[in-house]
């Protein structure tokens, strides 16, 4: 790919059209492909997976006219092939650099904890109790505790995992915003 190539609005629109004729569906597919590529590059030990995911998408977009003529089949698989090439080039280019270690500043940790307390208080009673009960057992009793909780709620254990995961993601988002606000 030409290193100077940049993703223009026109090229991006063409990519979305290729992914789906419905613009809303195309945008969802684009987001899903990008998130999945980030997970794949992270799984391969890449420290900056977002950059490699964007490079993969840019590379597919820059060759879209050729791809449209030559390629038929599952389009997400095409991204996977390009991602493999991008990864190989990345490995040749540089050694992976570890991410900087997280801060151990006690003031910062206390700030994060008070944000967590505030955000947990803002959860609905139902969500707060579910989250705390789900995480309330540790060790060998954990599996049985969660199975019984799922049974009590009348849902499958996997549905409970997903439900708690979503509460947790909402909480994490709240904590991140709280920290940003507190740091000004």
């Amino acid at each position: 790919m030409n290193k100077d190539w940049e993703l223009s609005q026109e090229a991006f629109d063409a990519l979305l059209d290729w992914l789906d004729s419905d613009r809303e569906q195309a945008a969802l597919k684009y987001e899903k492909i990008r998130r999945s590529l980030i997970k794949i590059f992270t799984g391969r030990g890449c420290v900056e997976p977002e950059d490699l995911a964007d490079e993969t998408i840019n590379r597919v977009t820059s060759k879209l006219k050729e791809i449209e003529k030559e390629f038929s089949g599952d389009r997400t698989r095409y991204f996977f092939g390009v991602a493999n090439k991008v990864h190989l080039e990345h490995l040749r280019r540089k050694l992976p650099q570890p991410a900087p270690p997280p801060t151990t500043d006690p003031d910062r940790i206390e700030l994060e904890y008070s944000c967590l307390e505030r955000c947990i208080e803002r959860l609905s009673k139902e969500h707060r109790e579910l989250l705390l009960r789900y995480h309330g057992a540790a060790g060998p009793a954990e599996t049985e505790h969660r199975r019984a909780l799922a049974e009590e709620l009348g849902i499958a254990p996997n549905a409970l995992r997903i439900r708690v995961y979503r509460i947790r993601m909402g909480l994490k988002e709240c904590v991140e915003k709280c920290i940003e606000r507190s740091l000004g």
Partner: protein
Amino acid sequence: MNLTADKQEVRSYLLGVLDADRKTQLEEQVLSAPETYEELLLVEEELIDQYAAGALSEHERRQFETHFLITAERQKNLRFGQLLKRYVNSNPAAAVIPHVENSAPAKKSLTFSMLPAAGRPVMVFSVAGVVLLGVALLCWLGYRRPQSRLAQQRDEPVVVVTLAAAAAPRVNVPPKGYDLKLELELANPSFRNYKSELFRENKSVQTHGELRVEPKGQQYIVPVTITGEVLSPGDYELKLSGVRESGADEFIEKYSFRVIE
């Protein structure tokens, strides 16, 4: 596809120990199958919780630190997991509230449903009796320790501080002649005994061996008494390791605190 097998496979993938062929197949699934992508997200959080609770094996812990924890995003997620664990540990009563409001009808009480003899009164009373005996034994064990702690406090004055892994509290320099007793919260008390090493700005200050775990409320703690004279204002880290029956030791957790005037 079997869900349990998938979960285990995703776990191996995240820890970087899945064989190359399956790894490629799984990555393709991550792109094309939403349920595989979702499973990846769920197992990521579960691994973080298990690491924060010290529940990973030695090999898994090493893979987690060297392979999983490479991105800033995952380090941030680990921090969040540690904070959440600290909150849950500090609110044990909230974690066992017996009723969850839900649109789905609640089938039965959690505690009751966990009893294998539920529904059979004689068996329920028998099981309840065994549980009460267990509770009484735990209380007795828990009671014996505080007695020795009080005796120690009378003979050798100490300042007691409870430490959770994700916390970093401020501790005043102990008054002259006093020691600092740290009660290290522990999620998984599965070792024969414990040892600790205290660092001040990466310099080893004091080590302790043959430490024993003690019950405290609904949690476990490992008490470590730091000599008051070695403490001066600054940031401290205490590394706790568990000693297995074989004598091999395993790093468990790092606890931080700041000593202030």
